[in-house]
């Protein structure tokens, strides 16, 4: 019983860190709910540790002999600037508007 609170505390910080990396804002109650669910799911994932994969190479995609292919460096059809900007909530003089990345100081 005394082990569990420590584990939850450490993982709560981890989950906050993950949420920050993923740019997902979580309220305190959401954090608590997700913490419980994520712990349960990660516990289930441990089943993969049963299998010895020391001499197995990973598969990230299933196409055998995947080959790159190229096209001529010629201009084709593409979206117009108007089309490309048409779905943005905020634009400025033909540009997408983003949050500031660098501060003044």
């Amino acid at each position, binding site marked *: 019983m005394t082990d569990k609170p420590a584990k939850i505390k450490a993982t709560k910080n981890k989950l906050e860190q993950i949420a920050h990396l993923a740019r997902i804002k979580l309220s305190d109650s959401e954090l608590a709910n997700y913490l419980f669910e994520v712990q*349960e799911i990660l516990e289930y994932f441990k089943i993969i540790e049963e299998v010895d994969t020391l001499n*197995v190479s990973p598969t990230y995609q*299933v196409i055998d002999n995947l080959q790159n292919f190229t096209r001529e460096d010629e201009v084709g059809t593409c979206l117009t600037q108007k089309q490309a900007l048409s779905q943005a909530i905020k634009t400025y003089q033909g540009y997408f508007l983003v949050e500031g990345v660098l501060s003044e100081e």
Partner: protein
Amino acid sequence: MKNRLNAVLKVVDPRGSVGHKDVYLTCGVETTAASKVLEGYLPQYSATLVLDLEKAGYKTKAKLNLDAWAHGASGENSAFGPTKNPWNPIYSPGGSSSGSAAAVASKLVEFATGTDTGGSIRLPASFTNTTALKPTYGALSRYGIIAMASSTDCPSIIARDVAKLKQIYKILAHQDPQDPNTHSQKRSELNKTVNKKKLSIGLPKEYFTQGLDKEVKGIVKNAANLLEKNGFKINEISLPHTKYGIAVYYLIMTTEVASNLARYDGIRYGNDRSHFGLEAKRRILLGTFASQAGYAARYYHKAANLRTLIIKDFKKAFKDIDLILAPVSPTPPFKLGERSKDPLKMYLSDLLTVNASLAGLPGLALPCGFTKDNLPVGMQIIGPRWSEYLLFSVGNKYQKITDWHERSPRL
């Protein structure tokens, strides 16, 4: 157009014939992925498959409901309300292509597109007595389809019989420079004809364990017996790494989802990330966790190693048999609300479909019976990569000697 089942998100043209799962971009027509993030989003171009169908005379009739971002097995993750099963509206039609299945089963559309990343067309087909194909990974172009997990996403087709699937597949199965994964010399295999006198079908023993519902087991075994009486050799086979499929899939898929959903920042299109629903956030968090430094080796990369073993299981099996027959779902259709509060229980609905997805294999879902509560049960035939010609042949034969697929729900 009636929408009592909530299968339709938007009517596009009442004179059209095809319904598109609302992850297929349709130029000038709102495409939402059933999420508030893309509410109001008007694509400035159409998916390759949408254009292919328009050119062949199949105009878009409607955009169809789904679990948001194709995350789900029940339709309950839609931001616009769940779709109901036409066979019994208190039941789920399965997911994530919930609207596609319900619309085809209730004859709102002639056929529909969907996607199958871990079972999302095969499951709803089996819950609604419809016929669906998850193609070989890379057979159909993913260009213009909102991405979920890029290494297993398969644009898919759902209809009321194999003949229609085959007809539409022929239009859609082509190389597309916009999707480099469609480039393959093996494409010519699709033009093969079935020349073997007696095809052998394997039943994987790991798909028929104690966890399988007794009614589903009985119905699928009856289908196997019928095929045996009609010229097919039935054998038991083993796919030893089956039980790791859910863990492997949910580690790899969530990692790819976290990456693919990173683009939704509300800057170039869509609303900001606070508009993501609960399941999308859950998967983004899991995927970010599985792939982050210090954890990736133990989770994501280990899963990728296991994926290799799962693929090897299938390759070994196909040395002895031509096709695999299995149930699609471990249980009959479940009620709306029955699993929505337990994410892990919902994930386990995919137990019998994820492994074929991880291996990039084609799967044909066929209606094969009903439970005592008059709920549909489907089976799947899985083949090696580029074996769709074999799947269509067996599927056609099965639908000639049975009439399950001709039954319609009373609406």
